[in-house]
């Protein structure tokens, strides 16, 4: 079970960084398409994760992340060492 506060924090950070309305961020929505991300934006995403959550991201970490739910799971597992 992921903490609602963490989800809120992730959504706020993503909405601010990628300049989208936070209301369009739904757990089942596709991450890349919803945030309109391309490879250059991914640089921002990596920096953002490392800066806000304090762990290092590797290329393989992004494999399998399709939706916001996947992204929440990924952040949560890394923070809690799961």
């Amino acid at each position, binding site marked *: 079970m992921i903490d609602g506060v963490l989800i809120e924090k992730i959504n706020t950070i993503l909405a601010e960084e990628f300049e989208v309305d936070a209301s369009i961020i739904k757990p089942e929505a596709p991450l890349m398409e919803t945030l309109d991300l*391309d*490879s*250059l934006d*991914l*640089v*921002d995403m*990596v*920096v953002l994760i490392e800066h806000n959550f304090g762990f290092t*991201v*590797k*290329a393989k970490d*992004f494999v399998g992340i399709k939706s916001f739910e996947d992204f929440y799971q990924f952040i949560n597992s890394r923070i809690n060492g799961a």
Partner: protein
Amino acid sequence: MEPNESNKSWSGKSRGGTLGYLSFVFLIKNFGVGAAYSLLSFVVIYYIPFAPKATSAIWKYSRKILKKGRLTSLKFLYMNFFRLGQSIIDRVAVGAGKYNEFVFDFSEPDNVKKVLNSSEGVVIIGAHFGNWEIGSPFFDKYSKEMMVVMMDYEYQNIKKILEAQKKIDTFGVIPITENSFSYLFEIRDALSKGKYIAIQGDRLSKSEKHLDMMFMGSMAAFPLGPFVLATRLNAPVVFYFAVRTGYKRYKFEFTMAGDYSGEPHKKKEVALMKDYVTTLERVVGEYPEQWYNYYNFWNI
């Protein structure tokens, strides 16, 4: 300077096959660069009609950007192709161990030396101008590994040539492949290990994000990628160009880029790009015939 969707870009294909390249290698190794230059003077004549895209690009560059007349432009066109050929020949000669035959001058300010000698990673931004690669062996003096970022199809071409020559190059390569982001992580990891990341800041690939900048008196599209990477990864940036200044003589020119970390988010890369374009404009203005972007760079 907003991104637009124009179609001016490099197709990704380079002229000249491996066999032609290896013929020149044979000539250089056995008869010297002078013999290779002589053969080149004839080969260039073939390229003018049979490389129409490149010919058209340089003709327009000469006529519309440099404002040269028709006859002068014809001579300029020949010299541009000839200089490109010379730069490849010289690069092969240096790579084959003939570097003692060449003179290399360094224009390297103290702040650049300090950064290149430090333990941190550095982003080195160059251009398809002059003879960038001829200087790569000299980066050894800083005892740091150089990783060159290039499109995967460029890398495959180079690999074929290196394998044919049974030669290992003086730099590593981080290939950019479509639909994969792994190169971003490789770049970041290399920087964190204190390596140099070399990347060209002038050539646009299809569908790449870009900004239009005033360059040599007209608007031209520059790729955002190198500048976004450099500013987001917080690495110091050095602009580097190697120009041919005479017979077997080169000058390596280094310029320290400004520190744009205080700029607002997403303005940093624009500031860095402006800095780069200003520097590039200065060196291209001095050596205009060493400009080797063979597509409609200015969309003119």
